[in-house]
Every structure is written in C-alpha cells, then in structure tokens.
C-alpha cells in the first residue's frame, strides 16, 4: 500500500520533470512561440527564466557562495532547521490556543455564537501585513524576532485546530451524552471520558493541516520581518540575486515544500503512535 503510493509519487515527479524539460525543448524549437503560430508562449524557455532541471538538481550540491565550502544542500538544511524551530513553537502555541478556544465555545453556547464567527473571519486578515507590526511589538517588549515569527505561525495554526476541535468535541451522539448524564457524571468527566476521545478523528487531520500552516506562517513571518537564518530569508536573498544563480531560488522553494511535508509527516508519525483502533480516512 505504501509502496504503491511511493511509486505513484515518484512517477508524478518524473512526469513533472519530463513536462518541464519537454516545454523547454518545444520552446527552443519554436523560438518561444506556440507551434504553427506567431503567438508567444506564456513563459519564456531560456535558461535564465527556466533553468534546466539538471541545473536545479546540481545546485543542491554546488557551494552556496562562490568559492565557499558549504554546499547549498547543507545551507538549506540549516535554514530549514531554523525555520522548523520557529514553526514548532508556533504550532504548539497555536494548538493550545485553538484547544482552549474550542473548550470555551463548547462550554458556553453564547460564547460559541459570539466567538466562532470571529474565529472564522480571523483568517481574512492578511497575515503578511500584520507581521512587521508583530515584530515591532516584539522588539519593544524585548522578545527576540524568532519568537515574533513563531507568533505569526501561531496565528495561522490556531484556526484549523479551534474549528475542528469544536466539531469533534460536539460530535458524540446524544445517546452517549445521555448515558453520562444517567451516571450523574459532571461536565468535566463527560469532556474527558467521551468528548475528547470522540474528537480524535477530527483532531489529527486538523493537526496535520496546522503543521503545514505553521511552516507557511514561519516563512511568511521571516520574509516580512526580515529575520535572517531561515528559509524565508534564503528565498528572498536568492530571488534578489536571481540573475546570478536562477537555480538556487527553485532549490530553496523545493526545500520549503519539503519542510511542509516533513512537518506533516512528523504529526502523522505521532498519530500512528498514539491512535489505536479505527483511524481517520486519509486526506
């Protein structure tokens, strides 16, 4: 089962590279126009705009700085680790806030009706705009820029956790809640013995989504806050120096995508360890 997935993933990667190179080859033959027409192709196929895939792969092994000894791969690994630390803090904070909000909305119907719409709307505020403001706050209050980035990651994480935790906590059938009432069990006992276990199939997909979002938030935060050392900075720097090394930006973007996957995978691994019994359907 897992082997099949791996195979199809590998096949899609091969298809992607084939498509990339195929498009470049076509553009090279038709001078960047649609075949048999004089209409220009949407993306120019020269090596500067679209570096050959071999170049992109090779860039990982090349030194990150001309004449330097550190390879791009190692550099990106360090940057990814930096970003992952910020993302993890953001993930933990966001999860805690999300769960607390869900518990609040569970306890009080009025709180649910009053707070849930705002929780839903919170994600329409463009985070990238708030980021520099959060960093300024952080600097006046004395906490480091990396913590500000973690806070920005928190903002993206709390939402799926809060919404899905609430749904999961409200999911038990009325009969199950009646059963607990027949045992004269209190709200807290019902929460721990019935609602929380019932919420598990809702919680883990939310955690997985939150994990990828925390990486996104960390990178967005790094870029708009100008924090050095992480993948966001790397992407920004390589983008600025695009003409001298176009392949590097692609490499950094690939690294960012892989980091998101790693975060997803870490939560999946935890899920496998923690959950016995019926599992959730895969996304």
């Amino acid at each position, binding site marked *: 089962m897992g082997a099949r*997935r791996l195979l*199809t*993933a590998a*096949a*899609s*990667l091969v*298809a992607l590279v084939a498509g990339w190179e195929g498009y470049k080859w076509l553009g090279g033959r038709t001078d960047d126009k649609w075949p048999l027409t004089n209409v220009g192709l*949407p*993306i*120019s196929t020269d090596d*500067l*705009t*679209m570096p050959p895939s071999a170049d992109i792969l090779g860039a990982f092994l090349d030194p990150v700085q001309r004449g330097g000894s550190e390879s791009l791969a190692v550099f990106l690994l360090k940057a990814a680790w930096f970003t992952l630390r910020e993302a993890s803090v953001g993930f933990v904070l966001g999860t805690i806030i999300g769960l607390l909000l869900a518990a609040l909305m569970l306890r009080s119907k*009025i*709180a649910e*009706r*009053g*707070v*849930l*719409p*705002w929780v839903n*709307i919170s*994600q*329409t*505020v*463009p*985070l*990238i*705009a*708030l980021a*520099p*403001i959060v960093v*300024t*706050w952080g600097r*006046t209050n004395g906490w480091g820029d990396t913590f500000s980035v973690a806070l920005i990651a928190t903002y993206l994480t709390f939402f799926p956790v809060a919404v899905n935790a609430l*749904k999961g906590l409200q999911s038990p059938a009325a009969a199950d809640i009646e059963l607990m009432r027949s045992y004269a069990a209190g709200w807290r006992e019902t929460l721990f013995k019935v609602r929380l276990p019932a919420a598990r199939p809702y919680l883990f997909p939310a955690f997985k989504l939150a994990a*990828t979002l925390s*990486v*996104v938030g960390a*990178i*967005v935060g790094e*870029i*708009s806050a100008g924090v050095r050392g992480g993948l*966001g900075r790397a*992407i*920004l720097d*390589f*983008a600025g120096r*695009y003409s001298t090394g*176009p392949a590097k*930006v*692609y490499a*950094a*973007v690939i690294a*960012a*995508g892989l980091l*998101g*996957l790693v975060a*997803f995978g870490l939560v999946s691994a935890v899920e496998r360890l923690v959950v016995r019994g019926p599992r959730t359907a895969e*996304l």
Partner: protein
Amino acid sequence: MTSQSRLDAWWPPIAFGLVFLAGWEAIVRVFDIQEFLLPRPTSIVAALRTEWAGEVGPGRITNLREAGWETGKVAVLGLVLGVVLGALLAFITTRFRLLRESFTPLAVIANATPIVALAPIFNAWFGITGIASNVGVVVVVVFFPVFINVARGLVEVEPNQLELMRSYAATPGTILRQVRIPNALPFFTTALRLAAPLSVIAAIVAEYFGGPTNRLGPVITQNASFSRYDNAWAAIVVASGLGLALFAIALAIERAVNPGRAPIEAS
C-alpha cells in the same frame, strides 16, 4: 429563518466584537500605548476616512479605494481562473484514475508549499510589471483546494447510486451528469468559500515582491515603514473587507446552489 432566530444568531458576535473593540480602545488609552505600537480603533477609523478617497499626488501615492480596487481585480481574476482550472482538471482526472492518482500527491505537496515562495519565481517568469505574475500566484493558491475538493466530490459517490445507474446501463457520460456533478456541487461551493478570502491574501502576498505601487500591499508596507501605523491598519481593514466581501459572495453562491443542504467539510 424567523426574524427572532436571525436576531438570536446575530447579537452574540456583534456583542463580542463591540466588547473587543471597546476593550482595545480602553487598553490603548489607559496604558497610554504609543500609536506606533498599537493604534486605537478610533484612529484607525479616522485614517480610513481620510485615506479612502484622498487626493492622489506626490504626497500620497494612492488612496485606499483605488488600491482596494486594483488588488481586488487581481484577486478576482485569479480566483475565477483558479476555480475554472481546478474544476476542469478535476473533471479530466475523474475519467483517468491513473492520472488522478499521480497528480493528487503533487497537488498535496504543492498545497503545502508556502505561496510566498512562488512569488519571486512567478516574477521571473511573467515579469514584474502588469498583473500576470500576481494573478499567477492567486491562481496557484486557489487552484489546489478547488481541484482537491471537486475531485473528491466527483469521485466519492455513494456506491449504491453507481450500482443503480449501472443497472440502468447508463454511460459514463450520463453518470457524470446525473450523479457525479450534482454530488460534486456542494464540494465545489465549499472550495469556493475557502478560496475566496485566500485569493485576497495571495494577491497581497504577491504584491510584497514588487510590482505596481497603487495596490494594498505596497500601501501597507510603505505606511508601516514611515510608522504611519494608523494608515497601515486602515489598509489592512480594507484588505480584510475585500476578503470578507468575496467570502460573502461565495456564501451566497453556496446557498443559491445548494438550497437546504448542510455545507460539506472541506479537505
């Protein structure tokens, strides 16, 4: 909904919102927090008023109304294109299972990649001037949730219904029309509801990487760099308002298309 239940539904969020704003105003005044750290809601409202339709000139690059309009254009164009592409590809891959199984992991990976990373690449591909590059970012952001959800809707049909159609010797085309598409409609509207605010955010993110300055992104950054945080927040409010407006439209479409059905949960 009766007017009583509508009132019941509306007063808690409005009450909470007002309490929150009042608390914000009070905290800033009482603790005498500097404007550059956290402006008062009242100053933000004032900034909104002055900046909304202000004279454009050397002192002010653009007013909020124009910036909102320009960003809105990018967002809506990207939204429509992304939705169309996502739905189209979902249709195509329904027919060919192998295609879907190989494409979906790519889609999931791409969805996990921060969109922020795409902007510089798109600038290299499509150039900084004009709207193509920014629209491209929005299209990519919108495309994947739409594709994933519509594909789910077209494929995850109840086996009973498929068996029934097969017993009628229905062709795949008929099954598509009579069963799969109606089944997929709620998934589509859910994805639309998600993608609408995302399109605005993606547009603004793309604007951070360069391009014309008469849009919301540059307005926010420039005001922030000159410490005019009240103006920056006013622009943020406009951006949120834009996202909300698109969200409301998506919601209306959802209600119109799926009368009486409970909304589907998105993947």
